[in-house]
């Protein structure tokens, strides 16, 4: 095989691999992703679908019982109704009333049931420097 041809074949193989990877990325990302919603949108959400809820913990609503945490979450701008939430699992250090959180879970009979260990609390600081992990 002359080298020109060989290089062409190599190029085609490399490009097809790249295209395959890209297609897999696109396909899996749309099926694996979870929609992010705010509590006001979740009040009428379909049961059985998993969502990422983003919102603000209502101040003074956090209660602890042996099952875990119970609290209410409102939209980030503080408007709209708030949604009752139950959650068990680890609670990040910065979690408390008034903080923005992201929690993955489903709505069951008007209560948002968080999956264990999916609670993410935004760092509260004004630390806008590159502050990673």
């Amino acid at each position, binding site marked *: 095989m002359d*080298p020109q041809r060989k*290089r062409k074949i190599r190029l085609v193989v*490399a490009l097809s691999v*790249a295209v395959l*990877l*890209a297609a897999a*990325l696109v396909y*899996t*990302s*749309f099926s*694996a*992703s*979870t*929609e*992010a919603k705010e509590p006001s949108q979740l009040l009428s959400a379909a049961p059985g679908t998993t969502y*990422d809820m*983003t919102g603000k913990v209502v101040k003074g609503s956090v*209660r*602890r019982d*042996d099952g875990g945490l119970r609290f209410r979450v409102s939209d980030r701008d503080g408007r709209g109704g708030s949604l009752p939430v139950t959650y068990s*699992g*680890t*609670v*990040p*250090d*910065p979690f*408390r009333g008034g903080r923005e959180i*992201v929690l*993955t879970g489903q709505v069951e009979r008007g209560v948002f049931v968080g999956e264990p*260990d999916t609670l*993410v*609390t*935004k*760092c*509260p*600081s*004004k*630390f*806008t*420097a*590159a*502050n*990673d*992990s």
Partner: protein
Amino acid sequence: MTADVGSVALALAFLTAVFAAVAALIGRNGDRRWIDISRRAVYGLCALITLCVVLIEVAFAGDDFSLNIVQQHSSIETPAFYKLAAMWSSQEGSLLLWAWVLSIASSAALYATRNRLRELVPYATAVMMGVAAFFTGLMLFGGGVDPFATLSPAPADGIGLTPLLQHPSMMIHPPMLYSGYVALTIPFAFAIGALVTRKLDAEWIRATRRFALIAWAFLGLGLLLGARWSYTELGWGGYWAWDPVENAALMPWLMATAFLHSIMVQEKRGMLKVWNACLIVGTFSLALLGTFLVRSGVLQSIHAFGDSTVGPYILGLIAVVLIGSTALIVSRLDDLRSQKRIDSLASREAVFLVNNLLLVALCAVIFWGTFFPLISELFTGQKSSLAAPWFDRYTTPLAILLVLFTGIGPLLAWRRVSWSSARRIFRVPLLVAAAVALALAVFTDALQSPWAFALFVFAAFALTGLTQEFWQGARARRSLAGGSTAAALVAVVSRNRRRYGGYIVHAGVAVLLIGIAASSSFQTNRDETLRPGESAKVDGRLISYERPTVSVDEKAFTFGAVLRVKQDGREPLTLRPTRRFFRPTGTGIGTIGSYFDGEATSEVGLKAGLGSDLWTAVQPDISSVQRRARAADRGFRRCVGGAPGVPAECQAVSRMMRAAAVNPSLRPIALAQITTLQGAIAERLARSYLDDRGPATFRVIVDPLVTWMWIGGLIALAGALIAIWPPRRTRRQPVLVGESEARKEAKYREIRDAELDHAAGKLSDEDFALLDAELRSEALEILDSQNGAKREKAPQV
């Protein structure tokens, strides 16, 4: 005063940056005077921004709360170390840090090239100063990010630094990442210079390679420190979460890794020029993107994103960089095309290319996942995000392939390797890898996780190959120079720092990945709710909650637990995880309940070991303490209100408060009395927690081999340091180096490299003879052209 001097210095810095860029462009046709002037202006810029930084730091150290930045991020109470580090916890301070590091790096780069690369330097200077002007201009005109903004009248105290960030690694981590981001400007600027002047050989790479390596090392250290902080401080037990801001730092690091490898191919073989130009543009753009991501609210992250006005400006800069560079590369495509082809797939450059593609693919996956919320919103109208499992699905196999090729690459010689050489080189590493695979399959349950198993085997292959390299290098050196094996090893490493430093980095990364694979695949992670006296069994260890502990001071409640861990055949050990609840800072005297309104931080109980880490964190049930705190506050209010029948100490305080209301000079005494009284109440609350003997929730993690992640990271950094360290020769070489001279030097180095490979047994006799002949004829070509140039010049002299 400080603010006035600082504002003037900052404005001057902006003007100096603009001037330096203009002066460099005026001198672009080789006018030495203008080039010298622009270089000195860059030094001047460095001095001016250093002055700004010193002024800010002095203000922090001296509690000058008339400066907004100090008032917002420090307080009288803040420990001295954190006062000095508080600068970059602010938006404006972090921009100042960017500009400062850039001015230092630019000065260093221009100093190092003051006698070289005459045509190219003016354009590189213009690019660096353009970026410097952007960041200084941003502080001046960006709106709300002026580091010298003042408050009038000056408040008596500042808000303070959030306790969560008061951790040593958190203070070093941001400047490390910044230095990494910023140092990438230098190779980018020189690449642009090379493109503009069409000087597209490897000279610009040789001049800036070290900066790329330094940037890589800084970024790596920044990532490592961030992971360490997360592991020991955040109380969730992980070190990586595929959070957008983490990804923003990882992507330029991966791209820089690819760049560091592919520039070697350009240096040695004159190939991959387009690729290298694209890589450095991509790396720099990703660094800017990282700077942008933390300052915009576009992505959900655990990191707070300041509502900031500077985001769009940085986005604009990225657009300019991308469009400008792409246009430049396209217009220079003819000059970038290389004459040579990759000879054989069994060559180092071919494997480098494969590794490059893997790294870029990794980067592409992470980029897609990070920005997926925006992408999905574009197509479906819904912001959807991707979680860690999605990232793992792609990054795991790519990382494993990377380790495999990392193992193969260093074993192969440049250009081509014959079948007989290959058999000789690969025999030992393959045998060891097979033995490790067998041992893992028989003696451990590593096969339960096929990915981790593959990674262990490939890592064993890579590590053996690297050991063989060192061994053969030392042996070859010994046969040439004699002496002991150890001395020969030191000599061969110090004479070929770049090569062996790189090998050490590879070994470190392989060890680090072993740690990651083992700890993520074979971790035991349990949450247990225990009362004092109860115990739980976790992975063969009996963990007993012996007793609660508590302490309280003016700043925080600290609840803790004493855990006793028993394991067969081991000394029992004691762990003391704690959780602190801080009062909000900077609000004066608060209520007792306010102790639980501020931040909380975890201090994990960690028993690190080479085999596995035992990691524990505690979540005390403080609901009863909080209830009592509220009751105590009600009582306190009643008491100072002068209600009858309250204790005598309380009546004394309430009398003093009434007196202070009339006579302000008594205020400090009243405050002190209130503090004392509150302290006594808090003490009582603390004791009540001990008496409750209530339940606490513990997270217990047994993390196998995780320590090797940190060790591997440190090994890699040590390797990078060895590769960065300049050889003694160039350190005392002040004379002007011509470009063809440098090219000749590089070719000689290549010939010496090939000789070493031959002596080490990596190249067979035939391969070496062929390669040596090629290299020598190339060296002769260079010499010829040099002589020709001299002859042409001769009549003018």
